[in-house]
């Protein structure tokens, strides 16, 4: 697995704003303002559906969070350290996959760190950023956005958790060997069974 794949899910706010590793808070401010302006222009030109509304709300919240975290030296350093730590814990767990007892311990430690990282930087600070005067000024974020965003952000955090979880080692079940050709056939056969059942009188259809 490449380094990039391993990093998927651990959102990199520095990369999100397209900043160099040695960026200054002023750079973050300049790029953030430009990106937010472009995004708001794009939103104003788009027909907003429920799906797009959630998408744009998340995009605004991500940009706000990136700026809010990166412009403050202390907050930024803590974020980068937490991100490095959780990624290192994943690697450490992978490295000890053959030792069941140690592996279990490391997995729990990693899981705790991951949940903390995601809830802090992908939810709590995103909402906090929406209350920051500078972010409010640039993004027009208000209380109504926050109310709606809380569900969107919870969904976003859990999705990221699932994305990371899906590439990890299996521990709660034995590692499955999935044959996708067989899966296709099974799905096809299942549809045949369900089609036949739905042709029967309503009282015999069961749960369907």
């Amino acid at each position, binding site marked *: 697995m490449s380094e990039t794949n391993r990093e998927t899910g651990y959102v990199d706010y520095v990369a999100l704003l397209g900043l160099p590793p040695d960026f200054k808070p002023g750079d973050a401010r300049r790029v953030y303002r430009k990106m937010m302006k472009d995004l708001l222009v794009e939103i104003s030109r788009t027909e907003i559906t429920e799906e797009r509304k959630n998408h744009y709300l998340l995009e605004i919240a991500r940009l706000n969070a990136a700026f809010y975290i990166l412009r403050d030296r202390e907050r930024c350093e803590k974020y980068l350290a937490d991100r490095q730590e959780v990624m290192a814990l994943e690697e450490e767990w992978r490295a000890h996959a053959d030792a069941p007892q140690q592996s279990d311990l490391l997995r729990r430690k990693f899981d705790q760190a991951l949940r903390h990282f995601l809830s802090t930087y992908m939810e709590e600070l995103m909402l906090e950023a929406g209350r920051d005067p500078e972010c409010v000024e640039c993004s027009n974020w208000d209380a109504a956005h926050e109310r709606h965003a809380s569900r969107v952000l919870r*969904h976003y955090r859990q999705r990221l958790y*699932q994305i990371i*979880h899906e590439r990890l080692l299996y521990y709660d079940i*034995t590692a499955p060997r*999935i044959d996708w050709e067989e899966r296709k056939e099974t799905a096809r056969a299942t549809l045949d069974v*369900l089609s036949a059942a*739905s042709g029967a009188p309503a*009282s015999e259809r069961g749960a369907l």
Partner: protein
Amino acid sequence: MSRTDTPQKKPVTPEQVAEVMAHAVATGDFVNFRFIFAPFSPLRNDSTESLDHPKYAYLLPGSEKSSAFEQALGVVSSPEVLNHVMAQLEKKGPAQYPWQPLLLLADNAVRLGKFTMASQAYELLRIRRRMQELYLEMGDEAIRQGNVSRGVLAYRVACGLDYDYAAFPEPLPAVPNYQHTALILHGDFPENPEQALPLRPETELVRTGLVYLSGNAEIAGRLDAFDHEIRRAVLAEWIRTADGTWSDFAARYREAIRMVDAYNQRVREIVENVGPHAVEMALDPETARLPIQAQVLLSGRTDEHQEWWQCLKELAASHPGGALFVTRAVVAGNREVLLPCYRSDSPLAEMVGLADTKAETRAVV
């Protein structure tokens, strides 16, 4: 007082474990499957619970063994699986489930329509999204080939496997919540006929209907790739098949349409002969009750005192598609009720058996 010894529990045999697990797998029962490995499971030798107790009879297969049970027993009895299961039952701490029976359980659960069970099992196997995608692709293929009913079935299975990652405190299988979403659909009172949901342009109604029935805007959005006529046929099929008693509802709906038609005719007569100010006084009590009786028919209850939103919730829970063919209206006595309503220029109502050719009224204003 003498102390009586607790009767010794008979050791659980691998055959018993295999039978119990095969029964859970064959019936697609994810809850029973997990229970097998619980710390207090009667299948653990160190547990005080005994499988011989009548309260655990539900874990055992009946006398008649189905082919699904035989297949499951074959998978569970394989040395690789059974040895692993027995080792997990001896182990302290969280068990590691064997993947082979879990996969079979998920497939059986889909066949039996137990989608929440299936989605939990697929989620544990980390293949839920790909299985969902597989069914969606099959649905698209069937619709492209003109087999709308199979396509809708595949889409409904895919929606059944959906997961709600925003659920609190942990992600859970997503389940339809029509009684809640129908209220959102009718949240704003229609000030004029064009604002009523069933009277909006048909393309808009079809899109809204598909999002509402699928419960997932992303899945419904896939259908945008098809022509409007096909999407309309998909919606009609979805409405009919999402509800086992749709034809009963359709008959009640047509009856309600006739009642509203009679009411509208009388109101029109009064307005033409006397004027709109006289409607309240000139309406006889029997005619004035017609819209309320129509609302009662729609909800399927006998209570005439229900509010419009109570009727809507009843209607949406028992006949989800019905919520797309009703509107809120204020009738004589300044009472807000739920009334049947559909576009006469759209074939949708006829496709789902709601159109009444005898009635004059197609829309309640």
